[in-house]
């Protein structure tokens, strides 16, 4: 694994060099991934929650569609958002194409089904009695939802972590909608793709290692934040 050691050394070197360009890339990646994850979670968790809790006709259908959307390819999302944000598109006047906001838009579409699907699965497994208990103790709809989500928290945090992992490692949308503009929308993944395209494999993997390190740091932070309850279940 000569390749790996070389890449590791390169990654260390890059980080040590304090190259502002590199740090900017990391910053853009993190910002975009975090914002996407937050937005998708803010929408996807409640969505998944209601699908899981409510009994309605066609519920299985909705879940099937949700599962299908897990296979939504980045190219399709990229092209749709492009069609929307392009100068000719409905929202063209906003000038959002090839900005971090465009990446966020695409990535939110990408991971919303993931967050929702996993929230459905986390919430459906929560004992019906939690809901009943909250309700009989006088909780309103939101408070009841909150109580159930609290019990499902490990599953939901899991879904959010996964969503973050998915977007920070995502290439296609970042490339198509961000445009991989140096110093503006270049992320760790698009930089990697570029290096790969150039045949600079060691550099590409070095960037990948930095990405994993960043992701590891985020996960450790989250673990610490979850605190002692983390081990409980």
């Amino acid at each position, binding site marked *: 694994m000569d390749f790996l050691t070389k890449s590791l050394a390169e990654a260390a070197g890059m980080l040590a060099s304090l190259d502002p360009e590199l740090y900017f890339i990391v910053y853009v990646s993190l910002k975009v991934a975090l914002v996407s994850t937050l937005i998708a979670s803010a929408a996807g968790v409640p969505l998944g929650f209601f699908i899981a809790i409510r009994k309605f006709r066609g519920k299985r259908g909705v879940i099937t569609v949700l599962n299908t959307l897990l296979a939504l390819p980045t190219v399709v999302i990229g092209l749709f958002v492009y069609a929307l944000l392009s100068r000719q598109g409905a929202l063209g006047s906003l000038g959002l194409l090839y900005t971090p906001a465009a990446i966020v838009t695409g990535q939110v579409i990408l991971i919303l089904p993931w967050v929702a699907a996993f929230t459905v699965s986390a919430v459906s497994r929560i004992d019906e009695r939690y809901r*009943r*208990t909250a309700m*009989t*103790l*006088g909780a309103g709809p939101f408070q009841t939802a909150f*109580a159930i989500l609290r019990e499902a928290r490990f599953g939901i945090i899991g879904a959010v972590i996964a969503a973050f992992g998915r977007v920070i490692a995502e290439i296609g949308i970042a490339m198509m909608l961000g445009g991989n503009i140096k110093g503006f929308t270049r992320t760790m993944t698009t930089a990697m793709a570029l290096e790969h395209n150039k045949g600079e494999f060691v550099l590409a993997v070095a960037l990948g290692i930095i990405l994993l390190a960043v992701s590891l740091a985020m996960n450790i932070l989250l673990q610490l934040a979850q605190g002692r309850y983390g081990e409980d279940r």
Partner: protein
Amino acid sequence: MTLYDLTLVQVQFGALRALDIDRLSLPENSACALLGPNGSGKTTLLHVLALLRPPTRGAVSFMGEPVSWREKTLLPLRRKVVLVDQHPIMFSTTVIKNVSYGPKMRGESRSFQKRIALECLDRVGMKEYADRPAHRLSGGETQRVAIARALACGPRVLLLDEPTAGVDIENQSVVEKIIFDLCSEKNMSILFSTHNPIQAERLARSKIYLSAGRLAAPAAENRFPARVLQQNGLLALIDNREIHTGPPPEIFSTGSFVSIDPEKIRVYANARGNSGPRNGWLAAKVLQISAETDRIRVVLDAGKAGGTLLTALLKAGDVRQNRIVPGDSVQITLDPDALRIEKPPA
């Protein structure tokens, strides 16, 4: 004013009709016991009364107003009634946070939440458990904390699903005392389900009997699976022992049930000179004697090998005259019309 009025209420689980009540009114400020065999619909009824489960069909009115079962209108009603589940579940946090959940939902101040929670925990003897993780408690501890949690909501109506099951003896009387006190002092209405008829007798002013989802007469006691034969005019075999002769009936083999009317059992102390066993007489042992409103309940072990429990309802005078005391061996006879035979399902 009546507390609840149920009209033609049904709850259906798939093909199963778990509840099917034509009319039921419950008065305010009373303690009412809910009795019935397993699967008779007690829990289901309590869920409806707690406004947690809309019935499949039928109308429920609560405190004089019809319940519309739309979420918006339900919340204020639900704040007046609290249910303690049969197997309560604790939120995975501390005991005190569980107990202060109700007041918190009602927007009470922090300090009030804490005070009332500790007060209620104290009532069930669980004050020292305040900071323990609630989802790790033992069965009886959970049951008691759940009762405290319901009390902390300060409801008008308290529904308890087998509140003393799993609770130790000492605390059974604590729980019973809580039920008793709340009704008499706080003008709270209480409905509790139980499998203990003595408890029902002691605590409840009225009783509801359920059987297969329907309101019923006091449960058929003394119901036994039996072999029923027509052989020498012999009628029923319980525990492989003849218990009655009578007119030749239809013949069933296994799968049939015999129930014996507890008011139609006569008990005679052995001392009375009734000689040894003969047809129509059964030897039995007195296990327990307890008071009901206007009767004395005597639990007898009438099985050949022990363990076949028969309940007789006697008049207080009979018991005193006969000087029956638990532990005595006695002879019993059944009145000719004491037996009811259920055919096995086709």
